[in-house]
């Protein structure tokens, strides 16, 4: 059954979209990630214009983050204060990101920047996660866990504007979460992702937040950042396709349920290792596409 997408201006099979939503939803439920970093490249791959893929995916992530955060909220895993500071940074960053997106698009470099951002960030995060999960699997076998220092003082603690974050048990400069939010906001706008896959490691390793509140807080701020991206992309570029977003969402909601159930049966390290492999595969594919000689060196830019 074909459906014509009003903003993407193309005809796509409904079941393909539901299936894609379902598959990515399954993975996001399994690994506890948003899935935007898989969905946006996939949408571009089936022929959705990159600008529409990014704008629409932001819209879809609003929905999936809301359903995710409500569950964490009930368990008290959201640090509101931290989330708010991250969100303020995220608002500023994503606004700048949408402006950058528009400029790069008119220069004809947006596709390259999207691909390069994916290659760089997926490459770094995937490699780190893989090393980490391999190490922890090995450590578990050795059963000689070395205890990490609970708190280390670095230059980060010398920054001004210190703030107390009760739930995260932190007393750090507000500039840190603001900066993290800002940078992830830019990436969210350009890459069409929530940014959880960058935000979560940054919160753990850079800010030193306890793992229990990381996901809930990250989801909380992702709602606002992706809502901001949705609004600005819709307003400035008219690249948000609600029909496409709704179809992907329907599949994703169902897929996420099965994913979460499957995830409960696997071990944390194994899950992280699997996710790392998948992230690296997407990265390798995008990198390969940049290197391989294109079918035609002339491409259609803007049809006015």
């Amino acid at each position, binding site marked *: 059954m074909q459906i014509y997408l009003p903003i993407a201006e193309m005809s796509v099979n409904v079941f393909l979209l539901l299936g894609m939503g379902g598959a990515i939803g399954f993975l996001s439920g399994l690994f506890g990630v948003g899935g935007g970093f898989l969905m946006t490249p996939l949408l571009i791959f089936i022929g959705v214009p990159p600008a529409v893929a990014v704008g629409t995916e932001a819209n879809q992530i609003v929905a999936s983050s809301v359903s995710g955060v409500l569950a964490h909220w009930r368990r008290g895993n959201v640090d509101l204060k931290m989330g708010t500071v991250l969100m303020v940074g995220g608002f500023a960053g994503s606004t700048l990101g949408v402006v950058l997106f528009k400029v790069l698009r008119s220069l004809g470099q947006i596709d390259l920047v999207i691909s390069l951002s994916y290659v760089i960030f997926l490459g770094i995060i995937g490699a780190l996660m893989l090393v980490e999960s391999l190490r922890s699997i090995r450590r578990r076998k050795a059963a000689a866990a070395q205890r990490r220092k609970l708190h280390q003082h670095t230059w980060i603690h010398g920054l001004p504007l210190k703030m107390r974050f009760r739930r995260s048990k932190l007393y750090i400069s507000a500039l840190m979460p603001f900066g993290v939010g800002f940078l992830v906001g830019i990436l969210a706008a350009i890459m069409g992702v929530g940014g959880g896959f960058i935000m979560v490691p940054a919160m753990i390793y850079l800010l030193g937040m306890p793992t229990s509140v990381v996901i809930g807080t990250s989801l909380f701020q992702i709602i606002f950042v992706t809502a901001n991206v949705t609004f600005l992309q819709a307003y400035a570029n008219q690249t*948000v396709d609600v029909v496409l977003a709704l179809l992907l969402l329907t599949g994703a909601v169902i897929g996420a349920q099965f994913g979460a159930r499957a995830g409960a049966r696997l071990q944390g390290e194994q899950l992280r290792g699997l996710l790392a492999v998948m992230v690296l595969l997407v990265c390798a594919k995008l990198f390969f596409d940049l290197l391989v000689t294109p079918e035609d060196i002339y491409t259609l830019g803007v049809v006015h």
Partner: protein
Amino acid sequence: MAGRIICARHALGLAVLLSVIGVHGGAWADSLVADLSQRLVAITTGFAGTNVLLFGAVDGQGDVVVVVRGPDRPVTMRRKGRVLGIWANTAQMTFERAPSFYAVASSRPLQEVAPPSVLARHELGVGALRLELAPAKASPNVAKEWRSGLIRNFQRAGLYSREERPITFLGNRLFRVELHLPANVPTGAYQAVTYLLRDGEVLSAQTMPLFVSKVGAEAYIYDFAVRHSAYYGLIAIAIALMAGWLAHLAFRKA
């Protein structure tokens, strides 16, 4: 169902044409009558491309060429080059006008129908399209490369014909051809032009308008997104919030 209606209209149209030609046959030397099965292509929710039937009759011998052309638009093309081993867009060029859609059908291969000068004058065939870059922007050789790049891209998108479709004749006078408009067909005011040629010269031509437009929910959503983009953005967010909340409720039950 739709096919049957088209067939019925087709038959009716032919009957009318026949009677017209039957009555005026002698007086209408070198004349041409044609019509389209539909004047409006409606892009609805289920739109997956459509065929438009063009049919007609000619008086006397000759070749028939049919061109369906979408509205002209400026088109920006980009060229990739290797930068540090990576393929990136390194140049761009804007054509002032290029048809957004171009399909051609002919009763014989175009080269046999008319000399290149005539094909060029009437822009018959993809090779004869007038796609010009300002001489200041590109030398003729470079312009030729960009031009064929544009044509290849439009052909890959299914928006320009790769080769002319054959026009079938029923008897000596009646002809028909089905032209395909793909799912990604641009909207706007199209022209379907039927040419009658003999000995390499155009004897007569008939132009018919054809409108391609979004209708129903598709048109409404698109218009709303363009005209009230701020509200559209807010509604998109509201829908997403609602959907997320509903998903949460469903989750909790499970």
